[in-house]
């Protein structure tokens, strides 16, 4: 995964760098590329934060590459990373019919002491459109982005207690053990912000971002909230991950600092 991300960044940079010579825009004082760090943050109003149910701040770290392709348009590429917690409020039963025709139910109880840990890496591609009258990267902007989300959901040894009614008289009770699932998803984001250039070098960026994770919407529309219809723990966790990502991306404040590279 890491290789893929680094590879993508390198390919984008190598492709766009020579293009600066052919840019339609003169750039800011001749510079077309901005490199920088950004942080998206918002209080965890519903979901937990990583490893804790206490009140906290969800925070996404990002490394950004922006390239001015037109007077008021920037192409944006960024790599971002965040960690947060996932809480499952429900007990769910997984039913299977064995080869003897008997229905076997396994009950999963979520141990609410510790949330599941969701670690996500994102690759973002998008465009920033600056307001008329100034040249990018100065002034107010609107940004549209596609965010590819590569998530890893980790559960600890105590996260789930299972009851298996293999024999009703003597159900098995135990812990599921540690494990992780990897899920891929994507989000669409829309940002409103403003950028200032300081000392003709630094670029200060601040704003607000709204996002949507379509997979979570689809799940909700399909009325798949009923866990009983889900066949495996993986599908349950996938859905929970998508929902968490949805809440995570819904609204974020944004601040960033970059520099005009070349």
């Amino acid at each position, binding site marked *: 995964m890491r290789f893929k991300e680094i590879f993508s960044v390198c390919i984008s940079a190598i492709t766009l760098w020579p293009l600066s010579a052919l840019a339609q825009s003169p750039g800011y004082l001749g510079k077309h590329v901005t490199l920088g760090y950004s942080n998206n943050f918002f209080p965890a109003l519903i979901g937990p934060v990583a490893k804790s149910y206490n009140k906290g701040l969800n925070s996404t770290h990002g490394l950004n590459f922006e390239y001015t392709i037109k007077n008021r348009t920037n192409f944006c590429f960024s790599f971002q990373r965040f960690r947060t917690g996932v809480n499952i409020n429900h007990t769910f039963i997984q039913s299977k019919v064995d080869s003897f025709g008997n229905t076997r139910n396994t009950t999963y109880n979520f141990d609410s002491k510790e949330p599941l840990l969701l670690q996500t890496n994102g690759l973002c591609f998008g465009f920033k459109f600056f307001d008329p009258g100034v040249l990018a990267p100065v002034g107010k902007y609107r940004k549209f982005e596609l965010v590819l989300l590569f998530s890893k959901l980790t559960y600890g040894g105590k996260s789930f207690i299972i009851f298996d009614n293999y024999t009703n008289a003597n159900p098995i009770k135990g812990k599921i053990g540690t494990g992780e699932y990897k899920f891929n998803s994507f989000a669409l984001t829309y940002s409103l912000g403003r950028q200032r*250039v300081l000392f003709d070098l630094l670029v200060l960026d601040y704003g607000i971002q709204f996002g949507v994770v379509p997979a979570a919407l689809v799940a909700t529309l399909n009325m798949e909230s009923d866990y009983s219809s889900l066949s495996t723990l993986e599908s349950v966790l996938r859905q929970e991950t998508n929902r968490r990502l949805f809440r995570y991306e819904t609204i974020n404040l944004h601040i960033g600092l970059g520099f005009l590279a070349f």
Partner: protein
Amino acid sequence: MKDPGVFLFYNMRLQFTPQALFIILFCFLINYSNAQFELDYKPVISSGTLPAEFLSTAQSMSEKDISRLGDIKYKSANEDFLKSNNYFLHELLLSGDVLLNDPLSQYVNKVMDELLKGDPSVRSTIKVFVTRSPDVNAFAFDNGYIFVNIGLLAQLENEAQLAYVLSHELTHALKKHSLSQYIENIKLKEGTSDYEGGTAKERRLARYRFSKEHESEADLEGLKMMKATKYSIKAIRGAFDVLQYSYLPFELVEFRKSFFEDEFLTLPDTLNLKKVSDIKANDDYDDTKSTHPNIRKRRGTIDPELVVDDENNRKKFLVSEADFKKIRETSRFELCRLYLVERDYMNAIYASYILLQKYKDNIYLKKIMGKALYNVMVTKPIPDQSFTPSISIGAGRSSSSKQYSIPDYSNIEGPSQRVYYMMENMNSVELNVMALSYVYKAYKQYPEDKALSVLTDSLISHLVYSNNLYLNDFSRKTKTELKAAPLSASVDLEQEESKYTSIKRDQQKAELETADNFSKYALVGLLKEQDFVSRYSRISKGHTKKPFTESYAKPVQKKPSKNEEEKVPYLGIKKVIFLDPYYLKLKDDGEKKTVKYYETEVHQQLLGTVQKECADKLHLEYMDVSVRNLQQNDLEKFNQNALFNDWVEERLKHGNKSRELVTSYEFIEEFIKTAGTKYVAWSGISNSKGKVERNNYFFILMDLETGKQVKYQTEENKGRDDKAMLNSLLYESLSHVVKTAN
């Protein structure tokens, strides 16, 4: 032509009797006073070193004044006034409209010395300048700066009148009338003014009443000052005549069309207005909404005070009558040029006509006349509009300016009405031919003058390209010659008449019968000149008559696509001249906008710096003619900027589509050589901060050689006008200037 003075001197030089010597000396003096105007005239320019106020900023001037205020009532209003006063004063001083150490300013200062002979302490606080404006006016700032317009100097009859005008303005300055009015306006808004009337209308008019009281006070106090001098008091009456008739030209001379006529060019009588309107000049006009009382009231106030016992011992001239006449004549010469800059072509024609009666060979006046005729001509509609050459400029958008049209002659009084009438009633071809005839004759007289040569070529080009007239369209014989000659068809009665000879005969007959077709015969004389014919041939070479079908079968022109229209051209220019940028910062509190003077000045400097930094980054060479941060010895730069301002001001008045000539092109041609570039860039921002901060930015690049606007860019945006925003705007504009298309 020899001057009479010179002629007399030559005849009497052999008999050196005392009487003869006296006559020689007298004639020499008369001759000397006018000799400088006889053949040419060079516009006045500033000289010497720049005084301190030209070197400092408005902010530092204001801060100094504010520090002297102490604890006074309406302190904040006083401060606001000083900021505004100093800002506008500073802008005026650096505008290039103010003359320094030139003969006019020197003379006016001498008159002020005479006026304040008894009060040297006051004299040391007063500074008098002459401003290059055709308006008949003078004005004063409260901090002792008095400005006298060239338009006023051109109209005055004697030195005493000038002294009275100065004493009037001096009273305004000493009594700080502007400040009083500023405070009074605030009081009126607050409702604490003594002038609060009953009705809303009366309150609105209160400030005019207050201003009129100040004017009356200045009239009377000025008179007191005059009485303390040896100047004639009786002469003051004439000063009010100057004011009353200030809308008329400086002299009333009969305008005759014969001025443009010669042996071959005869203008039809229809172009001559039979009777001109009487001069009315009502002195009892409604002054309710005027800052000044009407002339009758002013005369009424001052007349009883004009009687003094020692009038006989008083003089109209104390400094020098000869100097006065010289500076007045200089002002009149200047005025001709200023009229052109102001696009007042009718007055330019009439003023130069008046002076040409006296100085028949003056090349400067001839050029003014030629340029004015040219500019009137190009604003005339061309008979076949489809053949009008279009001037497509730069990025598509054009600056706003009014198209010139000749003022309605029926509103004009006096002999100058004939100029308006004649110009209004001549069509493009007639005016073109008349102007060409006039200019070419001037060129023949001064063949070394490049400007006249260029003007001749331009007029020929206009005949060819716009009016579609070629050499063969003009008759080489006069009407009289043609009438006397047998009609071309009747050459040999024995031979059978061919179709062609028949056609020619009919055409010749038709021409002879056309009464007012003077333009066809106007160039008979010029067509005998080999140089004229070869010029005409050279210019029209390669251009043939447009097929007549084009006038109704217009080719379909492809409409440019939106992308093409919006496409900003890359100009590939290596060097530009930077003018002082424009900046205005306003505070918008919803009800009114107020200028933030300090911030305006600071940002203007910043924009200038950003402009240069961006140019450096783009490797764009530049020549900076900015007058901000001048040094004491930067007078050359100051004069250059003054001429540039004239050029830009005139050019912007013409607008984008006009083909009017920018009249100071001779200076520009020289300057292009010195500067090494023909492109001049001017940028500016107007920032208004209310609930939302808005900026309006413009960037103009002009070609000094052709007067064309190469690039015109405007942007509107919201946000702080910080350095980043200025960088962003300027860098983009300049990058399009410097980069090449590929």
